[in-house]
């Protein structure tokens, strides 16, 4: 049994008097224990909404979530709010994009780490603080005893993200969802944080869902990659497969728009034309069709199905790319 099995997850935002908007459209993917799975796509493709739906953190009003999110066989979407709350932070944790705003500015770091231990492990404050110090130490924060009593604004961005990772992993969850954990950090710190995450998930056996728009992150971390476009999975492949033979024109475009050191001087960077706003609804045809270089008539006659490929992945495309791009 998979650790996490997301089946046909859909999220529709519906406001009174407005057209409903389908942010996530029948997304399915699985995460095996200890595996790292990437959700890749550009802004607005539904990555974050997917993760919030899995965590049950979407606002109560204004949206409709359907499908199944099976966590070790239990459908998280059907759990009572209290039961779900007991699992969050203990069995499934989440790290957010901006480490400064994700920490409570008026509470010392130590108390924030201790809080989750008190909540889920029933520790008292003193014991929790002692464990918090060890956790901060484990994520590579120097002088953890002193950091315990410091406030978020007093430590650096990289250290804040480390503290958040410590909080998320405090109860040794089986699944960690990281929503663009390195976007707010500069490049050198990004690398450190990714290395740390990789090391921690390897050590603890935690499965990781990595949500990112950065293919470099995917290349360094993920076992399996799901490429999302317009709220649907358009390509799924193992990491090496994806980077060696990207089949979907969107994935292909993303990969060839990565700048390369060995490209000739003066060569223009490849760009995918148009923007997300050019999408057509999936009901009409392939959402990517207006921006696609490989578009064929069939693309506008209905949504292409997600079909298994020969290499063990899945692909939603009528006219996939065959040429190879060697990147990264």
């Amino acid at each position, binding site marked *: 049994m998979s650790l996490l099995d997301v089946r046909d997850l859909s999220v529709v935002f519906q406001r009174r008097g407005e057209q409903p908007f389908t942010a996530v459209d029948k997304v399915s993917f699985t995460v095996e224990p200890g595996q790292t799975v990437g959700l890749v796509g550009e802004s607005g493709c539904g990555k974050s909404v997917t993760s919030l739906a899995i965590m049950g953190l979407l606002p109560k009003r204004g949206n409709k979530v359907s499908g199944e999110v099976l966590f070790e066989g239990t459908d998280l979407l059907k759990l009572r709010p209290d039961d779900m709350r007991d699992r969050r932070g203990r069995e499934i944790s989440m790290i957010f994009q901006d480490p400064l705003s994700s920490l409570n*500015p008026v509470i010392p770091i130590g108390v924030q780490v201790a809080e989750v231990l008190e909540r889920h492990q029933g520790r008292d404050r003193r014991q929790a603080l002692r464990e918090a110090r060890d956790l901060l130490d484990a994520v590579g924060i120097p002088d953890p005893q002193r950091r315990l009593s410091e406030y978020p604004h007093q430590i650096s961005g990289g250290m804040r993200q480390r503290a958040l990772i410590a909080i998320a992993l405090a109860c040794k969850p089986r699944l960690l969802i990281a929503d663009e954990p390195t976007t707010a950090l500069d490049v050198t710190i990004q690398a450190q944080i990714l290395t740390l995450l990789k090391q921690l998930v390897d050590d603890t056996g935690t499965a990781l869902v990595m949500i990112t728009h950065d293919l470099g992150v995917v290349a360094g971390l993920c076992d399996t990659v799901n490429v999302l476009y317009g709220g649907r999975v358009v390509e799924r492949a193992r990491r090496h497969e994806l980077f060696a033979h990207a089949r979907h024109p969107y994935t292909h475009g993303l990969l060839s728009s990565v700048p390369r050191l060995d490209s000739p001087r003066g060569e223009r960077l490849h760009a995918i034309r148009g923007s997300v706003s050019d999408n057509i609804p999936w009901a009409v045809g392939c959402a990517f069709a207006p921006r696609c270089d490989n578009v064929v008539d069939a693309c506008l006659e209905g949504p292409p199905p997600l079909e298994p490929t020969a290499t063990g992945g899945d692909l939603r495309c009528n006219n996939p790319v065959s040429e190879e791009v060697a990147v990264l």
Partner: protein
Amino acid sequence: MSDPITQAGTPAPRPGDDKPRPGMSERSIGLLGDRKKARLDELARAGVDQGGVSLVRDAVRRLRRNPVAIVGAVIVGLFVLMAIFAPLIAPHDAVQRFDELTKNLTVDTIPGASGDFPLGSDPLGRDFLSRMIYGARQTLFVGVLATLIGLALGVLIGAIAGAFGGWVDVVLMRLTDVMLALPSLLLAITLVAMASRSSQWTVIFAVAIVSVPIFARLLRGSMLAQRESDHVLAARALGVKERNIVLRHMLPNSLTAVIVQATLTFAVAILDAAALSFLGLGDPDINRAEWGLMLGVDGQRYFEVRPELAYYPALAIIVVALGFTLLGEAMREAIDPKNRR
């Protein structure tokens, strides 16, 4: 010249204690650059050695550099000291009528300053200076209690509205709207008038109730903003219980604005209490020394005989209210996160 000027591109021969830093800082860029670098290093060290600076200490540090805050704090400090040590400072008892004074009282004379009584007499032959000093006590008492009661009720209402949202929020906020729709003094007068017998408690409660909607609105607004904030979402993602999210995460982050408002409300409370006394709706106890009462009853009635009876209480009220306003404004500026760093 002791500083080695190295060529660009060659690694700078520096002693081992200097940690390598990325970028250009490692490379010597001429004498001026070196001096600048030394200065920067010195500044960096000075910054590091202070260790952690808490939010409060940070705000206090900024307050101490602000002359407005200092003026406000001095006024407030003196006022509070005067109130606390009134029995020690005051030359006489505030209630006792002195024969030396009463014997000179007539319809159109009230004894002025004399040796033992620096500010002279009040219309009943009591020492005016002592009554002024004891008045600080009464004013502080009314102001503090009214503000605290208003703060407590306002925080309670605002927190409930902000935490629950929905119809609870709507009902509570419409109630506060009703209270806000009336001018505050008019509302206070109405409340006092509703009491069967006025005492200093009716004044305190009236002034407190008037300040409730302001606190409630302010807190509810920042609670709602907090509810949408990332750290509250992060706390939810950790499975923190709703009660703890409200009490530990939303409320403490929303309180700063309310606490600052409390200092400003304090000034208004003093003025409102004085106004109620002035209008004769205050404490009926003639022995109680209270600035608003002194201004309203004695000052007004005997203004043509001895205008000082009105001047001094009025001046005291103005100065104290000003002191609290200055301090409150400075605190608001100091706590404002936009001014941080």
